[in-house]
C-alpha cells in the first residue's frame, strides 16, 4: 500500500482504457483491453486482494480476451470510430 505505486498503476490503467477505446483496429483494441485487465490484476495484488487478482487474471484477462478475439475473428476487424 504505497500510494505512489498505486498512482502510477492507476495512470497505466487509465491510459490502457483510453487506448482501448481510441484504436480503430478492433483486434488491437481487444489486446489493449487484455493489458488493461492485467494492470487491474497488479493493482488488486497491490491492494492485498490476492484472490480477486488471480480470478481476474484467469477469468477476466484470459477467457474474456479469448471470447473477444473469437467474436472479432467471426465478424469484421475494422471499426469506424
Amino acid at each position, binding site marked *: *500500500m504505497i*500510494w505512489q505505486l*498505486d*498512482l502510477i498503476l*492507476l495512470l497505466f*490503467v*487509465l491510459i490502457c*482504457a*483510453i487506448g*482501448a*477505446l481510441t484504436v480503430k483496429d*478492433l483486434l488491437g*483494441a*481487444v489486446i489493449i*483491453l487484455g493489458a*488493461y*485487465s492485467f494492470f*487491474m490484476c497488479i*493493482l*488488486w495484488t497491490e*491492494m*492485498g*486482494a*490476492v*484472490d*480477486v487478482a488471480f*480470478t*481476474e487474471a484467469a*477469468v*477476466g484477462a484470459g*477467457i*474474456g480476451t479469448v*471470447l*473477444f478475439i*473469437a*467474436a*472479432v475473428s*467471426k*465478424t*469484421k476487424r475494422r*471499426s*469506424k*470510430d
Partner: protein
Amino acid sequence: MLEYIISKYNFWIYVILMMIGLYAMMGKRNFVKKLIGMNIFQSAIILFFVSTGVKAGATVPILSGHGHGHGHELIEVAKYINPLPHVLMLTAIVVSIATTGVALAVLILIYRRYNTLEEDEILKIRKDTGV
C-alpha cells in the same frame, strides 16, 4: 490540502474510469467498442468495491499460525484486510464474464443478419427495408 488529495484521489480516478466506460457505452457507434466500454465500467465498479476493504498497514486475509486446536487466542482485526468485498467481487467478475459471453453471441447474430456492426448503418438498413 495534499493529505486530502492523497486520501481521496483513488476515488476520483475510479470515477474517471467509470465515466470513460459510460461514454463509450453511449457515444461509440461500434458494438464491440460498446462492449469494451461495458467491461471498463464493470471493472471500475469492482475496483471501487475492492478498495473499500483496504486497511493501511494490514496484510492479506490469510491467517497463519492460527490453526484449529488452539482456537481461543484473539486475532487482531486491524492486521488483516476486510475479506467481505473480495468475496462479493469474485462473484461479480464471473458474472461479468458470463454477460460478456452472451453479448458477444448476440453480436455475432447481428453480424450474420445485417453484415455490419455499426449502429447507424444498422438503423439505416432497418429504415430502408421498413422493418
